[in-house]
């Protein structure tokens, strides 16, 4: 059990060397830098819009009235706070004490709603009437379509054609909510290409359109802004864990990482505690494990790329983690040693999904099942010592994946 007090320097990595300040998840440096990562690598046509967004966010985040509106919507509309559930049967199975932060219980079924409500409020404040978004698994698209309906905004969601096939139900949900879903047929036909198309739309429509980016990626101010709108996950969880753990913090805090928004929001609540922070990427999209620093989608971060800088295609069972990059703050947290990043394979993810379903009666989405899969492996190998306390962010519920998982488990994957 951790003994570190909140606010004290962390006990991890080079950041604790003499004279080096502890890692904090505060405002990034000039130009949106997290150490060597981040920045704003964008065509000139989009720079003024990012400057406008940065100013609007800075104003809003210092404005109690804006924060009041945001928090009221999160509680009255999205169902916050979400609970932290102590998982007795899973804990017994793994030999460690497992707590789950239940983002699966939010309206629309994942943490994505937290960010989208914040960005929809900003869209209205900036006087814009239209939002575009990219989506992988469809959860961010559904959340954006939901907020657009709530605020009466026009909404277009770009989704890789491959993902529209594996997440057909989410496509229909978005359409029910009044959004237009545009399948993207270029490149790998997944999340990366959906971001490209959303950017191409935005360049042409920026006067009346806000790009509602779904993760802690992209050009400044997005990685900062999305992390701040997701910070609620970690801040709630920290207090809830303390209530359950007699004032102590968990030894380990684990979250899955696609672009990294649920992980960033979670880590933001624990970065100043003594908890070890662990991000779990899909093995087929492991930017931290197998990537090289480079520039894509407006940010400098770790990317899967070849020797001449061509971006490689990620490949994962989970559409939401099928991204060849990672948010720049994670690149920084990883290289500073404050957080560590690891991976999970498709097969063990399916096992973990079933394990949680059978022991706790909770069917997770494939994305957070990666976090559980790593935990199960690390408990078995002894990497996570028996008796540890582990908080895992359950970023979404499994309904969207049920059909795909059925196909795999029943052996008739298309």
């Amino acid at each position, binding site marked *: 059990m951790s003994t570190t007090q909140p606010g004290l320097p962390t006990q991890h990595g080079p950041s604790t060397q003499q004279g080096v300040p502890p890692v904090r998840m505060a405002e990034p440096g000039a130009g949106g830098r997290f150490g*060597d990562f981040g920045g704003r690598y964008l065509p000139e*046509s989009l720079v003024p819009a990012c400057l406008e967004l940065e100013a609007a966010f800075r104003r809003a985040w210092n404005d109690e009235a804006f924060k009041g509106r945001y928090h009221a919507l999160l509680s009255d509309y999205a169902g916050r706070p979400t609970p932290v559930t102590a998982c007795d049967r899973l804990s017994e199975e793994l030999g460690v004490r497992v707590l789950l932060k239940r983002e699966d219980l939010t309206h629309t079924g994942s943490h994505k709603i937290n960010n989208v409500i914040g960005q929809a409020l900003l869209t209205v404040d900036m006087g814009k009437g239209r939002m575009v978004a990219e989506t992988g698994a469809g959860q961010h698209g559904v959340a954006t379509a939901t907020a657009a309906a709530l605020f009466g905004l026009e909404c277009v969601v770009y989704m890789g054609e491959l993902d529209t096939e594996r997440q057909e139900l989410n496509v229909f949900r978005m359409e029910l909510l009044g959004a237009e879903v545009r399948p993207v047929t270029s490149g790998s036909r997944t999340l990366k290409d959906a971001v490209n198309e959303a950017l191409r739309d935005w360049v042409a429509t920026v006067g009346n359109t806000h790009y509602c980016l779904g993760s802690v990626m992209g050009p400044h101010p997005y990685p900062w802004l999305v992390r701040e709108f997701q910070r609620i996950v970690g801040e709630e969880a920290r207090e809830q864990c303390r209530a359950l753990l007699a004032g102590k913090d968990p030894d380990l805090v684990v979250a899955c990482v696609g672009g990294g928004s649920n992980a960033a929001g979670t880590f933001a609540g624990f970065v100043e505690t003594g908890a070890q922070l662990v991000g779990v990427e899909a093995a087929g999209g492991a930017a931290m494990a197998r990537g090289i620093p480079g520039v894509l989608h407006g940010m400098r971060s770790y990317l899967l790329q070849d020797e001449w*800088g061509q971006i490689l295609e990620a490949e994962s069972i989970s559409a939401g983690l099928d991204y060849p990059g990672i948010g720049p703050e994670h690149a920084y947290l990883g290289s500073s040693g404050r957080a560590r990043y690891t991976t999970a394979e498709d097969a063990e993810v399916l096992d973990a999904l079933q394990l949680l379903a059978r022991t706790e009666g909770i069917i997770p989405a494939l994305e957070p099942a990666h976090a559980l899969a790593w935990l199960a492996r690390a408990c078995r190998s002894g990497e996570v010592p028996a008796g540890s306390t582990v908080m895992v962010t359950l970023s979404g519920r499994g309904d969207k994946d049920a059909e795909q998982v059925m196909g795999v488990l029943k052996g008739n994957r298309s």
Partner: protein
Amino acid sequence: MSTESSVEEEVWDKGPVDERGLLVEPTLRAARDSGRKLLVGYVTGGLPGWIDHLAAMVDAGADAVEVGIPFSDPVMDGPTIQEASLRALQAGATPPSILEELRAVDIPVPLVAMTYYNVVARAGHRRFARLLVEGGVRGAIVPDLPLEESPEWERAARVGGVETTLLVAPVTPDDRLAEICARSHGFVYGVNLMGVTGERASLADSAGILARRLKAATDLPVVMGFGISGPAQAVDAAADADGVVVASALMRLALGGARPAEVGAAVAAVRAALDGS
């Protein structure tokens, strides 16, 4: 980034550079000052037959040619150049393979590389500049490198003998526009419209407005691009500027299997229209 100066880059830095190619700015200024409207063509490097297309554009009267170094995720490009980039990559194009092909030919007009920053960063700034210069390419356009992010590349390029041309958009405010003009080399690239590359039915109103703002702000050659699909639009776009870039319209022909002579004819038609205007 400072962290990118790899061991490999140090190695690339050694030995005399075999400088080739015409400088962009002096050549374009001289042409402009002689009363000629500038015509800049575009070809995606590494597409099968691209060197012949490039030569045909030059024979037909292009004053300079942009050579696209393809990138997997060209966010500023519409469907035509996306397709061309994809096909070039599928054919195995890399920066050195493209520049190696250029070394084998003598092109009597300036060449300007057009690529995305990750291609530059991955090679390393100095190494990339050297690859360009040895291939006879003395200019570079990197559209996802705005003012704030480009100083390191601009410096490496300048030292290495490459002129970096910056872009201005219709939404660029006056103070940014002035700074871009002050830092741009070769020419300044005015983006005609808010959007990606690709042919349009008509020239956007934003084109003339931006061209006039640029002409009032700088003595650099002002070249307008994006969406120019034929001679009439080229004449319109060049009216308030020093010249135009024609890209997707030519690449559409190349992708459709056009012979170099047909691509040359398209360039000649624009040339004639500009000369007659």
